[in-house]
């Protein structure tokens, strides 16, 4: 049996050898067909790779296009010019120009009066109410500021530009079309007619929308701005940075330079790697339980947001800092130790300064992540509707990404463009931070 098997093996080997010895005709039709096929497969494979990259880039372009095309119009705002009579009987009945009295006057009434004077044909109550929507409810504050600034206006009749209501803004920007069915749009034919009458009288203008950058949140899209959220983001990031940077760098130095290689260090190491991959919402749950339920810190405050995000950014910073410290060559340490420096001096005088650019790059990237983070902040109540600009890290506040989330949820058409514009601002900050990180790396990167 065994003989038989070995015999067959021998015979197979000899026939194989015989085949191999037969010279190959490289120009034969078979071979060239096969080569053609293999080259075609090669080209196909390469095309798949290129297609994959192009698909990913196309998604990026689509994302950018959809945001910019939706959002660019939010940077301008429609204004309406109306002839307002600054009636002394309404503004300053006693005539002594007391700012307290002037400040309390009914400017809303003045604007409504002016609108009625502009469109005398509007008589019924419900029609009037529709007419008043042309001007935003925030316009009366503008008027008040103006009168407080120049009290000489009282008694005069002036043409003033007032901020328009959000629906008319949408109409002016072309998001509401007059051609669609009247029942399915937010403005009826009368309102569009009035608007066109104003437009024909050159009383409609688009202006740069500074309010968007200076206001806090509002229920009225035309009055809502991102400044409150930006300040909230700033406080949150400051708290995050102040906590996670020193702690992260200290931990990285210890783990890389001082820690004995034992079980405990190994556990810490595995732990940090895993923390970096824990879903961010779990950090939100931790923040809710630890900071709000146990420590009773104020809800919605940037301090709590910063504390939560600090725990989340810590692994990122530790990992980046360790990589930067590891990249400093051992010869530097040996030289310092050889000259009599203590280990702590070696690290603080030589290793750390050399690793700093790398550490800072990692920190900026971690901060950029923290700036874009939303989910954990939802858990600790930073979703509240907050109009006021926060004055300190203890005040209730919201942050840019959460503001985007809140606006994206709002039903008004005008909030779509506000959301996209807020996204553009957020992305601008992120690009700035990442650009800074790239610059740092380019400028200070050292190859040893």
């Amino acid at each position, binding site marked *: 049996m065994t003989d038989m098997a070995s015999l067959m093996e021998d015979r197979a080997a000899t026939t194989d050898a015989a085949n191999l010895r037969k010279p190959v005709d490289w120009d034969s039709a078979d071979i060239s067909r096969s080569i053609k096929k293999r080259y075609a497969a090669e080209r196909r494979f390469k095309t798949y790779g290129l297609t994959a990259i192009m698909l*990913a880039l196309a998604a990026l372009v689509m994302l950018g296009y959809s945001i910019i095309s939706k959002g660019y119009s939010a940077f301008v705002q429609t204004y309406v010019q109306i002839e307002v009579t600054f009636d002394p009987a309404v503004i300053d009945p006693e005539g002594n120009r007391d700012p307290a009295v002037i400040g309390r006057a009914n400017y809303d009434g003045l604007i409504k009066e002016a609108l009625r004077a502009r469109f005398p044909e509007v008589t019924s109550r419900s029609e009037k109410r529709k007419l008043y929507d042309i001007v935003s409810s925030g316009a009366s504050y503008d008027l008040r500021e103006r009168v407080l600034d120049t009290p000489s206006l009282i008694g005069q009749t002036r043409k003033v530009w007032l901020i328009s209501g959000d629906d008319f803004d949408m109409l002016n920007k072309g998001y509401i079309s007059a051609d669609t069915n009247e029942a399915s749009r937010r403005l009826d034919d009368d309102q569009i007619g009035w608007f066109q009458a104003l437009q024909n009288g050159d009383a409609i203008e688009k202006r740069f929308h500074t309010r968007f950058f200076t206001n806090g949140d509002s229920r009225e899209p035309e009055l809502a701005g991102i400044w409150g959220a930006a300040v909230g983001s700033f406080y949150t990031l400051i708290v995050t940075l102040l906590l996670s940077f020193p702690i992260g760098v200290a931990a990285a130095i210890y783990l890389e330079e001082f820690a004995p290689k034992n079980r405990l260090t190994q556990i810490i190491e595995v732990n940090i790697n895993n923390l970096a991959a824990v879903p961010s919402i779990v950090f939100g749950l931790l923040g809710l339980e630890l900071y709000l339920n146990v420590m009773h810190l104020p809800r919605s405050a940037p301090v709590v947001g910063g504390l939560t995000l600090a725990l989340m950014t810590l692994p990122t910073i530790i990992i980046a800092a360790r990589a930067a410290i590891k990249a400093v060559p051992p010869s530097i340490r040996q030289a310092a130790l050889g000259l009599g420096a203590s280990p702590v001096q070696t690290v603080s005088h030589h290793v750390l300064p050399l690793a700093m650019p790398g550490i800072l790059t990692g920190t900026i990237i971690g901060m950029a992540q923290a700036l874009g983070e939303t989910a954990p902040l939802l858990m600790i109540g930073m979703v509240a509707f907050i109009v006021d600009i926060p004055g300190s890290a203890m005040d209730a506040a919201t942050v840019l990404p959460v503001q985007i989330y809140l606006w994206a949820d709002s039903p008004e058409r005008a909030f779509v463009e506000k959301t996209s514009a807020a996204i553009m601002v957020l992305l601008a900050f992120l690009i700035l931070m990442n650009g800074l990180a790239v610059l740092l790396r380019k400028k200070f990167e050292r190859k040893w």
Partner: protein
Amino acid sequence: MSLTFLLLAVALLCALSFVFGRQRAIALSGGRFSNLHSLPIHYGTYTALWCGLPALALLIVWYALQGPVTEALIINDLPVEITSDTGKLSLALNAISLIAADNGQHLNVAPEVVEAGNRLALLHTISNTALIVVLLCVALVGLGLSYRRIVADMRARNNVERIVRYLMIGCSAIAILSTVGIVFSLMFEALHFFSKVNPLEFLFGLEWSPQTAIRADQVASDGSFGMIPLFAGTLLITFIAMLVAVPVGLFSAIYMGEYASPTFRAWAKPALEILAGVPTVVYGFFAALTVAPFLRDTGSVLGLSVSSESALAAGLVMGVMIIPFVSSLSDDVMSQVPQSLRDGSYGLGATKSETIRHVIFPAALPGIVGAILLAVSRAIGETMIVVMAAGLAANLTANPLQAVTTVTVQIVTLLVGDQEFDSAKTLSAFALGLVLFLVTLGLNVFALKVVQKYREKYD
């Protein structure tokens, strides 16, 4: 405000004690530093550390304990009919904190509560004043004691270095502490939840409708807490995301690593990485306002009924988000395959694609599997895209055109708005969080192990 002030005060005292310590050392040296054990700067740091660290520790402990202690004091004084009912108690505590913050004029509450609110305000003032006094005392005592200990042959450098080393160990321990914190806080509330709802029902129940009555006068059913539909929804969306991310990510990595010219690589790689840097809330907006309507319209043209919150829209966008993650991880893995394997394959006459498919890919497979597992864990834990683009109703379906909900969506909906830490509804969010944490942790540990092992193989 007061916190910033306190921190500034402590920082100022630290700076002062640094100067004092250094001056004293210089004075003791009599002009020759070689008479000292350490450099004057070490004596300065020594006093600064002893001044600042105890004060800082006190500050942290004080802020951590202030809330619970004042609350306990307030509850102690409230009448029994309020404290006996947890619902009433939390309402009263809310009112009290509003009154204490001077925002409660409009509230219509019992006089005891108003009085308690005023007492809380008083307690806060007392606590803040006491903190300032105690903190300054601690800082000054630390400064004085350490200052008095300075003598010429004191080993200041060794002392400072020992403190610095302990500080660094403490900082490393925070990483462990936060894991412990996560586990404990999730466990604590999840155990509360499981005392109200049977864990088996939670793990294997097929129905999820957490609407329970938060107040006694609300009409609501008892609620059912079966998490299977949530996990099915999560897995469906994750699966769709992987269908996008794995082929696109892998092929981009292959093209970048093996085919692309350096110039192409130089601009395409950062461009891909932008995809990873875009905040998830932006993807959520994109999914909800661009992709979902597009899919619905396309579906209606084709005669399909696509839900406006379809799993497909959320999954596709999540897939796009994960592409750079898959591609950079698998790029790492494939570039670690030794050059000799490539050279061997080319030497035998294989084309590039044959080398990749038959040599590099099989050699890198364990690492790629690890990368994909990491990507899966990220997709499972992703929150904002699904919160904005996926539905709220827990449908048990495998149809990607229908709306499904996910674990993270439910956590967010349960915890945004009314929270009631004695109702199963709010607590179930923590149970879901615990499951989410354990699942992602398991995936991560396993994936990191696989990647690590693979790395060792070729090192």
